[in-house]
């Protein structure tokens, strides 16, 4: 797993509307991205200080019935956030 530390786009808003439902809202595009509670947990770790491995560890510790391939799920999820412009990686100088 990569040593890179993903970071949430600071313009993006996390709206935890209901207990089982949240949405990421990008005010620059007006587009929303639905999140389940695990997605919210991952999103809150995207602070540029945690690697994907760290994040998966948090998920394993916080959630029940975590599937074996959670690492791959987390990687795909973060990759999708990056693709949508909702998260990114620090550019190394």
């Amino acid at each position, binding site marked *: 797993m990569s040593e890179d530390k993903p970071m949430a786009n600071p*313009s993006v808003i*996390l*709206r*935890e509307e*209901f207990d089982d439902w949240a949405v990421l*809202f990008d005010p620059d595009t007006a587009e929303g991205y639905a999140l389940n509670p695990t997605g919210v947990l991952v999103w809150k770790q995207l602070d540029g200080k945690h690697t994907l491995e760290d994040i998966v560890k948090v998920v394993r510790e916080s959630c029940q019935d975590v599937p074996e391939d959670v690492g791959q799920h987390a990687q795909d999820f973060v990759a999708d956030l990056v693709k949508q412009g909702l998260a990114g990686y620090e550019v190394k100088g």
Partner: protein
Amino acid sequence: MTTTSPAAEKPARKLRLMRTPKSVDIDITDRCNLRCRYCYFFTSPADVKQDLPRDEWLRFFEELNRCAVTEVCLAGGEPFIREDLADIIRGIVRNRMRFSILSNGTLITEELAAFLSSTGRCNFVQVSIDGSISITHDSFRGQGTFYKAVQGIRTLQRNGVSAAVRVTIHRQNVRDLDNIARLLLEEIGLPSFSTNSAGYMGLCQKNTEQVQLSSEERYLAMTTLLKLVKKYEGRISAQAGPLAEGKIWLEMEKARREGLDSLPDRGYLTGCGCPLSKIAVRSDGVYVPCNMLSHIELGRINRDSLQDIWQNHPELWKIRERRFKALGDFEFCRGCPYLSYCTGNCPALAYALLGQVDHPSPDACLRKYLEEGGRLPEESPE
């Protein structure tokens, strides 16, 4: 016509409430350069003769950011009359929100339109246009306002700002609707526009005879608008007023004719869902459920917690829970053949007309309209 009505299905008793409102309607000023004769704002409880200074609003936007509010709608009053509007909008953008503005269109400058465009966060600026020519538009809005409002729209368009138009239908323009649609959709080239009619609020209460449609004019407006919706393939919309009434009343009449037990979410006071997703603030910084229910004070910005008001204020819950009140329990609705197909309509109009929020509004009551000699359009919009 039957005089009994089958019971409507009871709505789910528990409401799911968002943790914070999604959007906030803000009367950003109490001032306006016009005094349109049917303006709902002036002389209403929203007209508090006080504007908050810029810094109060900027502080408030920081709380909206913390509450993850995604959008504010600036109204009033005329938002473009504020000399510090650009600073206010910068504060909205800085706090990760989008915005829209409701305007009479007459004060929009090239510079301001370019600024709005540069933010990339403007959903739309809504300009009021009430006629295809100045004589109709200006009749209630003041001389020279038509030209300036159209110029305002053109300025927005030139600068790449989405321009929305709201047409308020009244006695002077009800025979001009074909031309208004042609002007807006063909000549000006808007993708769409919306319509309404002047409600019995604010200045309209003093000018009812001149402004509000008779039953026959209401029929004419419904018929014309439904025809125009077909002609322009849905590019004309309405949430209230004759077009909305034409659609919903035809649906209600069809349900009655077919003997349906009920329609979804009808038969109760379900006419307003706004307090489930948004809240409003008066120009003096007082929270209210809606800018048309400005007499219900919920607290003050920068003093009271928005989240606390949103989640716990009993007055706000009373309005949300209107939807559990059965229309059949109101004397006003007894024996109505449309009872199980009706929403009871707008609570703000119920208050304006009867002084009661928890009551069906007589304004959009189909039975009352028919009893007063009104007719339904002959064809459904499909």
